[in-house]
């Protein structure tokens, strides 16, 4: 099991927050920017011939002797997409610090929240050249068990190509919505084009940048030949205190660059370390970042 009952209960009380509401197909538990036939008042507008007279506010008409159409907020469901980077580099970290397991737990949590809120939830496993593996779209809590089962079936392999993976994901007609990109972003081509591609298709993107502690502070020293588990590429390096400090500075600069880019593009960025328990991230970190409420 990815999480227990009490955590699930806590998750069920949360709702995912999209800063821009997206029009849904089904009535959901979410307000839409589309004005509609719901009972929640939103605004008035002048009557135009042909308007549904049922939506005319007769009380205003009686008082002002002018017809106004009452605009009501329409409550809709939200399309939530969890795009999981399934490259080999995600299978990294010891035991509970394993990035892959951590990402699956986060995805399951997001799924639980979305399904409980009546949102459309889709999981996309991004594998370069490995075809697309996806679950959903699903709606309703009944799908949670199947979702968890699906997630537990997945194994990462291959190299990262976020742009290519995003393109493949978007090939299928989908409802745009809130897209969570769960990745370590170790993509030589960068994540920027993938972000552009998603945003171009109307997705609101939240990047959950997951790293393990030994990627933050590598426990390495001496004359080494570092072998990339994804690409098999080797890099010779003589590691000492100075070089480790340089690595830390480089990592911070990288994360800052990602954050700046996301900010400019209206995407949200949340850097995560697998040593921080995932439930704390969801219950406190994401709430603080305004991703859930």
């Amino acid at each position, binding site marked *: 099991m990815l999480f227990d009952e009490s955590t699930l209960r806590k998750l069920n009380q949360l709702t995912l927050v999209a800063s821009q509401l997206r029009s849904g197909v089904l009535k959901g538990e979410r307000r839409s920017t589309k004005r509609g036939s719901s009972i929640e008042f939103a605004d008035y507008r002048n009557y135009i011939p042909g308007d549904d007279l049922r939506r005319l506010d007769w009380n205003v008409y009686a008082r002002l002797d002018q017809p106004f159409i009452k605009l009501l907020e329409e409550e809709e469901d939200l399309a939530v997409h969890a795009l999981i980077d399934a490259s080999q580099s995600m299978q990294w970290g010891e035991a509970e610090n394993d990035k892959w397991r951590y990402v699956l737990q986060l995805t399951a949590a997001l799924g639980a929240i979305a399904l409980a809120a009546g949102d459309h939830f889709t999981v996309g496993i991004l594998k370069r050249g490995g075809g697309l593996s996806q679950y959903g779209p699903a709606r309703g809590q009944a799908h949670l068990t199947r979702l968890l089962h699906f997630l537990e079936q997945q194994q990462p392999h291959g190299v990262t190509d976020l742009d290519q993976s995003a393109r493949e994901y978007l090939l299928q007609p989908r409802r745009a919505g809130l897209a969570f990109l769960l990745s370590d972003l170790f993509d030589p081509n960068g994540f920027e084009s993938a972000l552009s591609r998603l945003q171009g298709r109307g997705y609101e993107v939240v990047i959950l940048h997951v790293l393990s502690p030994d990627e933050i502070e590598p426990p390495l*020293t001496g004359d*080494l030949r570092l072998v990339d588990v994804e690409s098999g590429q080797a890099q010779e390096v003589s590691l000492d205190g100075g070089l480790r400090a*340089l690595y830390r500075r480089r990592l911070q600069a990288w994360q800052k660059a990602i954050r700046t880019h996301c900010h400019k593009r209206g995407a949200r960025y949340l850097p995560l370390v697998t040593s921080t328990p995932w439930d704390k991230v969801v219950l406190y970190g994401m709430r603080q970042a305004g991703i859930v409420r």
Partner: protein
Amino acid sequence: MTLLNPLLLLFGLLAVPILALYMLKLRRREVAVSSTLLWQQVLRDRQANAPWQRLRRNLLLFLQLTILAALVLALARPALRLPVVASGSVVVLLDASASMNATDVTPSRFEVGRAAARRLIEGLANGAQMTLIAVKAQPQILVAREDDRDELRRALAAAIPSEGAANWETALALAAAAAVGSETVTTVIISDGGLPSEGLPPIPGEIRYLPIGHSGENLAVSALALRPSGNTVELFVGVSNYGDSERLAVLSLYRNGALLTAQEMSVPAGKQAQLSLYDLPSDAAVFQARLSPAAGETADVFPLDDAAFAVYQPPRKGRALVVTANPNGNFFLEQILTVMPGITPFRSLSQPGDAPKLPAEPFDLYVFDGYLPAELPEGPLLIINPPPTLLFSTSGVFSDTGKVEIADDPLTAYVDWSNVHVLRARQVQPPPWAKVLIRAEGGALVFAGEDNRRRIAVVTFDLRDSDLPLHVTFPILFANLLDYLATGQTFEAPDGLQPGSGLTIRLPAEAQKVVITSPRGSVYILESGEGRLTFDQTDELGVYAMNYLGRDSSFADFFAVNLFGTGESEIAPRQSIRLGRATLTAAAPTEMGQCELWPWLAALALAVAMMEWWVYHNRQAGKVRLMDKMAGSVR
């Protein structure tokens, strides 16, 4: 700078295997990482300050190459050319006399002299030889014609200053001998100038003089003497000031370690102050005079002569055996022996008509009157009216005993023969070992000498054939002869000895060996069947104890060794000395010697090796710490 072994620079090629080993050592450990993306960026960043980083990365290699360079350079023996006092082959005469113990220079004159000699060794040209001679009472060649600096340094380090005077004549003879066969030899005299002002032989080659010391201020116990006076003893002590200013000191006198008196004395510059003590007990005792600075005075820079010792030994009585041909004995002879101090006479008993018999026990003196045994006993002999013997040839008698000549000898002191008449005397041919003391016209009347270390005195006439016993000359002559033959002292050192001088010891008849203990506790055992011994291990100042051991008995005696009269107390350094006709003044470093740098390079190699070890160890420890830290953070 020159290289003495430039070929050894080829060892520098060892850098090649070091570099090869280093490169082999750099076989990197393979480690899997999730991505090398960031590492590639990090390495690109590092290119900006690559030279320094590369240097840091190769610090161990750099240190190892530095060690190799230092060692190879050390092997090549680089040397700087420096001005020195002497170059080429050198003979060094290092003054090791007592005055070199003075501390007017730090730590002492001898150590400063040793340092000067060490500088000469360091400046010794490659292949040049050096001879080191320590000049003492018996000059000692520390090392001869040696070109190995280590050997020279070891020999120099082993040299110690003596407490006696220096025998410069012998030392210069040794130096001249060491110079034989060498074309150019420089003799360097390192001394405070206590050389005799004249009489020293010239030596070949260049001579340089390095004076040591700067102060002549010294207060010394310059005399300590004891004299019997009736039944008591008188003590005389002299304190001399060799400096240029009046000095105040406390003189303490001890008898057998107990303080007799202590007095403050003021001694004018260049003068002697004296003190006498009377009515001291006449039993054997060791006296000591010791100087200490008075309140407010600075300590003496030459403490060796601040103490002096003297030994009072009452005369010991010797046993004399009188054997006379006359059965009634010789009245005059026995009388004179009886009244002589220090002699206890015994008469040999024999039946009338029989030949006298000698007792088996030994005596300190044998007196034979008109008789000589076939086999002479051990010990000194006084022979009166000798019968024919193997000792010397006799031929009848002579009666022309006038025209007496008296030899100038201590044995004839105060002897007046003018009124003495001798009726007849035996015609004796004095042997080569004897000196004729009194000679008459017809032949020798009295002669004495030492044959095979046995003292023999001969009176060639019968006392009863002369009127000698009736004259005052009789006791004077016999006192002189008996003093010579049978002195109660086993050695003669009435006023003590100077350090390094020999002492002749007459073993008493009953003693078989003598054990001598020096002031610092060294023990010497002397054994001899000859009855005479020579002891010359008198280098230490102080009181020596002598224990005579016999079969059934033993007794002790003492003698003192002092600096009196050696000139060592005059410690004022001399800026010039005379050798032959030449006057030598302080030498300046005018010649070029070489100072080898290899010890410094070896030290540098050692220091860098230690640094390399530290860097390596630190890196290893850093790895372990990092692993622990990361393990902790992952947990």
